[in-house]
């Protein structure tokens, strides 16, 4: 296989991969939309000290990884 035909093959494989990802995302969306209206999941929701979640409780907001953060008792 020449280098140019090899490069073309890789481009086609990457295109197929891109289309597969797009199709998966669309399927994921259809599946979720069937369960109810879709709203953006936005961070910054401060949770009350009485709320408990996971192993860290109480918590106030989230680190970017989704881990609940402990409330500062001074606040």
């Amino acid at each position, binding site marked *: 296989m020449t280098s140019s035909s*090899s*490069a073309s*093959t*890789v*481009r086609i*494989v*990457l*295109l197929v*991969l*891109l289309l597969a990802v*797009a199709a998966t*995302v669309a399927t*994921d*969306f259809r*599946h*979720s*939309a069937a*369960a109810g209206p*879709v*709203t*953006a*999941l*936005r*961070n*910054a*929701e*401060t*949770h009350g000290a009485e709320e408990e*979640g*996971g*192993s*860290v409780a109480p918590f106030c*907001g*989230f*680190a*970017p*990884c*989704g*881990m*609940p*953060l*402990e409330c*500062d008792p001074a606040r």
Partner: protein
Amino acid sequence: MVATVPAAPAGAVDRPVALLAAGFILLLALACALAVDGRQGLLALVGAGFGFALYHGSFSFAGGWRAAIVRGRTGSIRAQMLAIGLASIAMLPLLARGEFLGQPLAGAVGPLGLSLAVGALMFGFGMQLGGGCASGTLFTVGGGSVRMLITLAFFIAGALLGTAHLPWWSQQYAYGVVLPAEHLGVVATLLLQLAALALVFWLARRWELRRTGAVAAISRPPADAPVLPVSRRLWRGQWPLAWAAVALAVLAVANLLLAGQPWSVTFAFNLWGAKLAGLLGLDVAGWEYWSWSMPAQALAGPVLAESTSVTNFGIVLGALLAAGLSGRFAPVARVPLKSALAAAIGGLLMGYGARLSFGCNVGALFSGIASGSLHGWAWFALAFAGTAAGLRARRCFGLED
């Protein structure tokens, strides 16, 4: 191999690639706008902007740190400090205010502790084997790197594994979140932070002068870049690092205003991993991490409703567009076995490390510091130490210095 774009001179515009990328960017933005809301659509465009700037500036954390240690070239580190400093100027006051036009704003904060230390060391080590950090992995995948697809796949697997263990790690020793602005006030914290960033900038500059006898200006294009007028360089690429730094800072602020949280990358990786695991019959919904409020909501909803997924898709497509416009989209299928093994190990370590350390070079370093959280600085120091060790490990896999 690191997360940089091909050094070869730009060729003619690769029209099929550029048109395909532009089409998918529009499709992503429209899908988000129509299916979620207008802000989500704009967020997709911000993500594409990140990818475009990262690719055209060859803005690499992994490659930049390696160049500083191995060759004494510190342009990337200085550009990182510039970007974080500019973002801080806008983000710290915004976060102190707590909301913008009714949207609550939260910073990228994390606790100091054992989990952060172990995770940051692992991440810094892994990114030298993987060949790129989190943002670097995404933009080089968009640029056509087949090797980085391996890194990305294992990055996702590592992040998912990290979610299985994070609840345990979060119960180990932790000092807690430290936000200097709560004690010193926003203005003093901002001034202190800018002074610290300037100090790192100055130390990096001195290190380069000592090692190489000269300092490459980050306001100039790379030495091997063709001479182009500014208007043409903007879309054809090989930007000065300072351009990319300014663009990333502006986009990071836009990300905060649109999403309510700073720019972050790796939360999407655990989410994608969890959803893919579900397709393969592994139900992670019962894991403790996925019972926490935000991860549980993310898992139940579509990825297009989750901010970091949207910006990540945008980064890949924005980089693809940049690669097409610069004429440097040249994927190579052949990946030596040892290099592929290094990519897999590096990806796993980065994914697991990012989860333990509450983010990556973007969520913990860039956004953590710009949010005024001390964990961002701790992450920086520990990941840099991990990188120094990772550079030695590269030789075991026959990777170039």
